[in-house]
C-alpha cells in the first residue's frame, strides 16, 4: 500500500468527524486532526477504531497519544502493518 493510498484512506475515515470541512481541501501529512479539522477530541477514539477496522491492526493507547496529524497516523499504520 502506497503512502498516498494510506493518506487517502485516512482522509475518508476522518471525514464524518470533521467539523471544519475546509480543512479537508489541502489534506496532507501535516493536517492536524484537532486544530485544522476541528474534530471533537472525544471522537478521536472513534477515528482510531475505524482505522483499526480499515487496516486490520490494533493501536495501543501510547500510539494513540502520538497520533495528532494525518502524517502521524500514516507512520503508525505503516509500523503496525509491518509487524
Amino acid at each position: 500500500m502506497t503512502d498516498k493510498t494510506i493518506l487517502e484512506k485516512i482522509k475518508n475515515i476522518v471525514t464524518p468527524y470533521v467539523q471544519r470541512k475546509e480543512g479537508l481541501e489541502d489534506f496532507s501529512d501535516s493536517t492536524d486532526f484537532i486544530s485544522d479539522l476541528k474534530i471533537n477530541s472525544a471522537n478521536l477514539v472513534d477515528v482510531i477504531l475505524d482505522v483499526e477496522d480499515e487496516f486490520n491492526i490494533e493501536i495501543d493507547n501510547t500510539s494513540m497519544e502520538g497520533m495528532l496529524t494525518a502524517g502521524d497516523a500514516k507512520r503508525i499504520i505503516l509500523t503496525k502493518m509491518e509487524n
Partner: protein
Amino acid sequence: MEKRVVITGLGICSPNGTSIPEFETALRMGKSGITFHPQLKELNFSCQIGGKPSISEEKIADYFTPLQLRGLNSSGIVYGVISGTDAFKDAGLELAEEDSPDWDTGIIFGTGILGVDKFREAIHLIDAGKTRRLGSTSVIQTMASGISAYLGGILGCGNQVTTNSSACTTGTEALLMGYERIKAGKAKRMLVGSCGDDGPYVWGGFDAMRILPGNYNDKPEEASKPMSTLASGFVPGSGAGALVLEDLESALERGAKIYAEVLGGEVNSGGQRGEGSMTAANNEAVQRCITGAIFNSKIKASEIDSINGHLTATSKDSVEIKNWVEALNLKDDFPYINSLKGMTGHCLSASGSIECVASVLQLDKGFIFPNINCEKIHPEILALISEESIPRETIEKSINILAKASFGFGDVNAVVIFKKYV
C-alpha cells in the same frame, strides 16, 4: 411578581402519531398505535404487543447530523430529539447562534431509563473483553441526561438543562418543574417533556410482574382498555412528548401562538405508607395532590371541564376514579374524563408528556377525545360517576379548564391544571 406561564410549542412522537397534525387526527378518530411485535413472541413474552412510534430512517436523518447517526442506538433519544426539536420550532424559536447559547431558554426533559439497546451493546463488548471497542458514544447515549444533553446541544440552550426521573410521573413532573422555574423568573422559556425507549429490555420487567395483558396478541388494537370491565393490564408503550413553556410577557412580545396557560399544579408522594407501596398509590396522597393542584391554580373544583386521567387499564382504574370523586367532591356534575392509554398503551416515562400534549390540543382545538376499547364500563366506576362523563365518541366542545394527572412507581404523583388562553 410571579410570572404567568403559557404553552407556545408542541411536539410529539406517539405510537399513534409522530407530528402534531397527525396526532390530533388520531385523537379525534380514536386511532390505536398498538401493534404486534414478533421479537416479543420470539423471546417468549406473555404480552407480545406494544406501542411504538413509527419513524422512517429519512425522518431521523432530518433531526440528527450524519456524525450523530453513527452508532446511534437509543430509541428514547430519537423520540425525544424529534419531539423536542419540533416543539421548539413550533414555538417559532431559532436555534442559538454558533458562538453563544440562548441564556433565557432551558430544558427539563425526563426519562425512566435511556439507551437500553446501546447499553446492551456495551455489555456484550465489555463481557467479551473488548471494552476499548465501545467508542465515544456509549456514555452519551446511556446517561439518563443524554436526552437533555442532546437537545441542549442541538438547540443551544444556556439556561438550566437537566433530566428528571420519577417513573410514570416523569413527563408531568418535568412540565411542573419548568413551570416553577419560569414562574420564579429564572428562565423565559423552558422546553419540557419526557421520553422512553421501546422494546423487550424496557418492557420485560413489567411482563415478568404479570401486569400486562397476555390474551390480545392477535388483536393488539383492542388490548388497552382503560375503565373497561375487561381491563386486564396495561399495554407497554414508548415515545416522547414535548412542550415549550414560556413567560406570558415573552410570548406576547414575540407574537407567539399560545396554546394554553399552565395555571399551576402539585407534585407529592404517599411515602409508601398506608395503602401506598413501591407499586401502589397511597390514596390520601393522590387526593392531596389533586386538591393541592386546584388550590395552587386558584380555581374551584367545579370549574374543571375535563380530566385526563392516569388510568392505565388495570383493575385499579376504579380506585383512581374514586380518588377524583372524593378529591373534587363532585358526583352528579363530575367532569368529562378520558385516558389516552387506550390508543397509545402506557408509554411509561413518556406517558405524562405525551398526555399533556393531548390535553393541551383538546383545549386549543375544542374537543374531547374518546375513550376507546371501553364498550362496557367497569361497574365499580359506574357506581361512582355517570356514563356521560366517560365519552366513547369524540365530543366537539370548547373546554376551559382541564386537569391532567400522572402517577408512578415509588408512590409519586403529579397533577397539572391547564386553562384555555383567551
